[in-house]
């Protein structure tokens, strides 16, 4: 591992974050862009759920995670508390793994 990797990655990662944060600072976005920005988390977090649940190293995969996150979805839909949903998702996934599925 080189220091070049550490430093360049740090600069690149922060540049992404700071650009997004400062670009819109102190000014009002046009209404369409403002609405689009408001919807960004829903679109990206939903994609992240798919990524973390049914993909592995760039391929679609169904394993214990799908069962655990499925259980979490039911709990979330029933409006269970966030912590309950998180613990349930992890516990079901661990249990399914433990019985070797």
């Amino acid at each position: 591992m080189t220091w070049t990797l550490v430093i360049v990655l740090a600069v690149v990662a922060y540049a992404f974050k700071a650009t997004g944060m400062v670009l819109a600072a102190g000014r009002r976005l046009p209404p369409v862009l403002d609405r689009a920005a408001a919807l960004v988390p829903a679109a990206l977090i939903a994609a992240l759920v798919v990524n973390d649940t049914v993909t592995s190293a760039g391929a679609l995969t169904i394993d214990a995670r799908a069962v655990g996150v499925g259980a979490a979805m039911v709990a979330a839909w029933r409006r269970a508390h966030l912590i309950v949903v998180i613990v349930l998702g992890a516990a079901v996934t661990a249990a399914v793994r433990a019985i070797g599925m």
Partner: protein
Amino acid sequence: MNEQRSVVSAGLVLAAAVGVFGIAFGAGAVSAGASVWQACVMSLAVFTGASQFSAISVIAAGGGTVAALGGATLLAARNGVYALAMSRVLPRGRLATRLIAAQVTIDESTAMASAARDNTEARRAFWVTGLGVYVFWNLGTLVGAVAGSAVDPAVFGLDAAFPSGFVAMLAPLMDQPAHRAAAIGGAVICLVATPVLPVGLPILCAAAAVMLGVRR
């Protein structure tokens, strides 16, 4: 009062789970040839878990700096899109606050803020989660790098803890048609793009799904 405590405790639960991944990262980085210093500076300065894991896995597999940077950059890019959304939530015009906020703009802080009912709660959720995750990710990295023994978060199902939490954070948004359209669109784009695009890009492409919601 109860809501405040709830946001704080939920943010801290997420942060603690991130700590276990921090240990895995610290141990993995050292076994990939990083020094303890390099592992810790990376977590303090890069602070993007997916990017960091991607970088050390390329190095561990014998890849070079450029190859490691390529994959890690794609995974870091989505934080820029989150930052655009989070800049609407934070107070206008305070540059110093924003520059600090930028560093803790990640999946967890963005999702927690988005699930909040108003701007005040969103700010609290953003800062508690962002700073909590920052502390635990870096403590975990140090412990893992020094102790060198890897924990496998998968044993506890912790790899499913994050998508489970994100599902719960999305749930209150699903009552609104525009958010629902953006979320379903984003999920479908990621599903379709995963087999054909490099890791990191499908999540970024999912941003296009906001167009489905803007018209609603």
